[in-house]
């Protein structure tokens, strides 16, 4: 009995993820990258994660068997000490025309060059750039084989393309970052409204790809009197505002605690302020891997962030039947939290810090007082996360990565 060969199964594709920095980074995008890489490897694809960073450590999140992690930046040794020294000096040149090219090449040229060389050697079927630095390098890399380039965006587009404080501060990059997107075959955005931001030319390549949210079996009642806040301790998350609110709320709600999970540049400032102002019942928990378990027992997630992409802390809280309080003008969050259904959206008022503080204090305080409302909002959380079930999201990933037609999903 002699049979004809079967076609190669669709599972055996080569996929590379590119991200500039991954070592020991515990952010949401890094987590999405690792979870997606793991899920695609479990579906039989060959997955490699490419970073380009001086830290020689591995990722914070565990990779599944089959996922190879490669840091493209060789360690500094021998002559590389010298060339690195020159390169780092060049990045301090004045960022003016002509010189800006030198600054740009000194800062990003190595990533693009090494990524290009590696992609030519490994010839993946598809490469997914995570966040602007890797996406720009991917767009610039020239390869000699058919390869789909996918950009995975994890913020509101204004933050990725227009905020001069974010990502690469060089003039050249800021001028070219958006233009380079024309070399990308698929642009995955987290929410439908982000698609509308792009120009007509680019919008043809944009598809909506939410993050996956794992459902949790959680009780609606019998929760501890704990308000959680989860996120990097950075200005954008507005933990300072939350602590201000808590200063007013805590005396009126004995027995309640505020626990803040996360690490970041503001850690010392926040700790000093809590100590100096003797704010009661508030604890900085630091970064802990068991934070997800606390979504099952605490009562409320307070998330006063300025803007978000697709906030994992919010989705995980909702999936674990925990109501979320956040501002109505916070992108990403305002798509996931429905006022009166699975949480509370706080009006921004005139947008001033004072107006925000007063409104957030009132809303959070009212929810802490009203157990019945908390339970009703808690019950609304898990159904609202059903469209983001991991299997559905990974199906969508595969469609974006491999299908010829643009996926029309607009979750």
């Amino acid at each position, binding site marked *: 009995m002699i049979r004809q*060969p*079967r076609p190669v199964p669709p599972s055996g594709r080569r996929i590379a993820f590119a991200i500039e920095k991954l070592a020991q980074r515990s952010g949401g995008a890094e987590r999405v990258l690792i979870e997606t890489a793991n899920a695609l490897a479990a579906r039989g694809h*060959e997955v490699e994660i490419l970073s380009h960073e001086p830290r020689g450590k591995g990722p914070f999140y565990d*990779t599944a*068997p*089959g996922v*190879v992690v490669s840091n493209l930046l060789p360690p500094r040794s021998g002559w590389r000490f010298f060339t690195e020294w020159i390169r780092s000096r060049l990045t301090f040149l004045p960022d003016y025309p002509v010189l800006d090219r030198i600054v740009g090449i000194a800062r990003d040229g190595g990533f693009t060059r090494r990524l290009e*060389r*590696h992609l030519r050697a490994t010839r993946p079927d598809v490469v997914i750039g995570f966040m602007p630095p890797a996406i720009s390098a991917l767009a610039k890399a020239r390869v000699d084989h058919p390869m789909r380039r996918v950009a995975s965006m994890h913020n509101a587009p204004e933050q990725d393309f227009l905020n001069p404080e974010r990502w690469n501060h060089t003039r050249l990059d800021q001028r070219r970052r958006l233009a380079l997107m024309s070399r990308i075959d698929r642009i995955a955005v987290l929410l439908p409204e982000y698609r509308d931001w792009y120009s007509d030319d680019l919008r043809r390549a944009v598809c909506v790809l939410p993050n996956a949210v794992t459902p949790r079996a959680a009780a609606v009642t019998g929760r501890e009197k704990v308000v959680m806040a989860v996120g990097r301790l950075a200005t954008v998350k507005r933990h300072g505002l939350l602590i201000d609110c808590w200063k007013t709320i805590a005396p009126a709600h004995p027995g309640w605690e505020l626990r803040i999970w996360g690490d970041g540049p503001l850690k010392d400032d926040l700790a000093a302020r809590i100590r100096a102002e003797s704010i009661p019942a508030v604890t900085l928990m630091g970064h802990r891997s068991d934070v997800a378990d606390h979504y099952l027992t605490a009562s409320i997630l307070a998330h006063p962030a300025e803007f978000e992409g697709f906030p994992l802390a919010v989705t995980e809280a909702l999936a674990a039947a925990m109501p979320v309080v956040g501002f109505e003008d916070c992108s990403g969050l305002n798509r996931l939290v429905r006022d009166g259904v699975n949480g509370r959206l706080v009006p921004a008022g005139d947008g001033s810090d004072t107006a925000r503080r007063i409104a957030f204090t009132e809303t959070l305080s009212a929810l802490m007082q009203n157990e019945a409302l908390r339970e009703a909002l808690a019950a609304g959380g898990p159904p609202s996360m059903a469209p983001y079930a991991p299997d559905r999201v990974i199906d969508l990933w595969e469609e974006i990565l491999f299908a010829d037609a643009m996926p029309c999903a607009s979750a």
Partner: protein
Amino acid sequence: MTFALDVLIPHYCDPDGLKRSLDSIAAQTWRGRMRVIVVDDGSPDHDTLAAQTHCDAFAATTPFAVLFERNPTNLGRPRTRNRLLDLTDATHVAWLDAGDIWYPDKTARQFAHLDTLTARGVDISSVWVTCTYDWEQHGRARTLSQRVGGDQVLELLVGDHFRAYLWTLLGTAEAFRIAGRFDERLPRLQDLDYFLRFVRGGGRIETAPGRRALCRYFKSDIGRNASEVHACYKLILTKNAPAISRYPRALSSKLHYKANRLASRFAYANGDRIGAARYLAEAALGSPRHALLVARNVLRSRLRAGG
């Protein structure tokens, strides 16, 4: 019916070698539900027919099942091996190349070792079990053991005491999925690439205990294209450059030296003296430090032998 073990054999123009391999499988003391899958890589009709006849005879005289398939043309070993991977659905997988043989207790010893690992609490879904083997070349045989301790990426790259030979392996199907598919651009040395991907992907290779060989490999350099070997080796080094760069630079120099030395050996074995000399010169010029070290060691051993 789910098989406990699929034995995957690529075959090309060597029905007698295939028969030898099948006979060694028939003699296995392990008697679980085994199936042998043979994919003929587009051999001429008479070789294919002979190979299929051997497979039919094997199925008729042993309790084991056989699946014989054929590529319409000669697609090369990596594509044939990928096709074998597509055909397998057993819980465990082992490999054998047509012409090489297993000794009777190979499968039993390797399964026993997997059981031992399971009893120790090791997750065998990411473990391959290799073994000591006999290496026969030019009529001479030597027994080589696999030293699997330490940094397996480094050991595989250096290849002095731990070598990437697929026909030594047995493991769960899940463990083989870690390595993915064979790189079809590598007509040679695809085993090394496959092993490196497995280890870099979180897999671990163990060896069945004991110093006795469990299989025999019949090595020949004849007919192997030196430039093809050289190109394949270089490609593997480029693919794994990020991992290699984590080690001292001397390793990179050594590996590039090795690539040229290996190509030189194949060129010499196939009568291409000029090619052999060219690769040797490239080895010396490209990695002078390592070439000097090798020359010094050779000189010392000659002096010792002479003295």
